[in-house]
């Protein structure tokens, strides 16, 4: 399995606070990883770096074998391969359709093809018939599903999920779990943060555990070496 990401000596600091300090981490393609750790462990920081939204303070990242240059226009091309679904997703003003089609328009997908994709992904998250609904009038669970559909519509190589199953009802959670678990079968790499200790087993995912910004459990089958402190912890 090819490596999607290879992170080398990644460090992210905010002033004197070290939010993330990873010696080495490789994330393989077409797999599902659950990212766990207590609050402030660096999970969201890592997701933002993986999504190319926030550069590390130091260190290097290779995506699909290509070195990521944080100061170049190529960053936009990297971002188009990876989509991050935030824990509390933002829906733009307008309809559900406008939201799901947002990324498709950017990619030049319009007309019937656009409508077909929007229909398919909304159907996939159980929101058939929601096309014309105003996004701002949806319940929390519905909004979460629209955001998921918006991300799925882009068929990203990597889908990063920040607590996608938090704060939603059991029925919606079950549905989204099924959707998420099916993604690696279609070749999508998934990295998902969670506080639920059962998620790695239920989703048949591999586990990455962070504590105080350091890796304490690298994913089996991938290259991930522990920092000295991490190994001790």
């Amino acid at each position, binding site marked *: 399995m090819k490596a999607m990401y290879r992170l080398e000596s990644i460090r992210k600091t905010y002033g004197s606070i070290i939010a993330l300090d990873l010696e080495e981490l490789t994330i393989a393609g077409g797999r599902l990883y659950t990212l766990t750790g207590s609050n402030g462990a660096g999970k969201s920081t890592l997701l*933002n770096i993986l*999504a190319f*939204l926030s550069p590390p303070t130091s260190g290097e990242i290779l995506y699909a074998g290509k070195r990521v240059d944080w100061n170049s226009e190529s960053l*936009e091309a990297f*971002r*188009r391969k*990876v*989509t*991050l679904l*935030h824990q*509390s*997703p*933002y829906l*733009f*003003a307008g309809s559900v359709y406008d939201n799901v089609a*947002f*990324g498709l328009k*950017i*990619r030049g997908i319009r007309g019937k093809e656009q409508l077909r994709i929007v229909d398919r992904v909304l159907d996939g998250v159980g929101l058939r018939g929601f096309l014309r609904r105003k996004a701002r009038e949806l319940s929390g669970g519905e909004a979460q599903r629209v955001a998921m559909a*918006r*991300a799925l519509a*882009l068929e990203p190589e990597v889908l990063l999920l920040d607590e996608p199953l938090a704060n939603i009802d059991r029925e919606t959670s079950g549905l989204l779990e099924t959707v998420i678990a099916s993604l690696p079968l279609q070749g999508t790499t998934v990295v998902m943060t969670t506080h639920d200790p059962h998620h790695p087993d239920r989703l048949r995912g591999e586990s990455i555990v962070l504590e105080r910004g350091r890796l304490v459990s690298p994913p089996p089958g991938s290259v991930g070496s522990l920092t000295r402190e991490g190994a001790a912890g």
Partner: protein
Amino acid sequence: MDFLVSSFVAALRLIGSFPPDVRDAVRTSLSVSTGATVFAAVFGIPLGLLIGLTEFPLKRIVVTILNTMMALPTVVVGLVVYGFLSRQGPLGILGLLFTPTAIVIGGTLLATPIVANYSLASVRGADPRIVPTALTLGAGYLRVVGALIGEVRFGILAAVIAGFGRVVSEVGVAMMLGGNIRGYSRTMTTAIALETSKGEFAFGMALGIVLMVVALIANLFLNFLQQR
């Protein structure tokens, strides 16, 4: 009290009959204010967005200057522009002094800091998730800015209306740069000042009422758009 009531009644009659002097002043006011607001929007919105979305040295000083410029006295703007447009000034050759165009120039200078500042405030107050959401969906810089403008459009619209309010209600610039020429560069505010000083209080009051109605219509328009 009788004076006020009788003047008010006379003012309503004047508005009803809509004499040429009132009509010309209303037309001039609306045209120069609209022109100045359009230019202020063209310069002010991008300026506010640029300051709000980028980090650069001396940003705080630039914001402070912009804040200060919101309180620019109209007569100071009038004085400076007069200096440029007067016959001896560097732009005197254009012959713009005492024309509606000169009022538009002055009005643009008055309204631009207001539009820029309100636009800046809209961007600063925007939901911090907008930019990362647009970026992670593959948007480039221009599309991110477009998405942001779309989300804060009511704030920006309010900025434009505030700019219009500033221009339509000022006297100094219109008086100094327009020259208060009857039927040509006389605006509602300069007409109110002139007619009241001549003792034509009812005439001034009629224009004052029209001015208030214009402000009311601008706000109703904003409310209408917000409720859509």
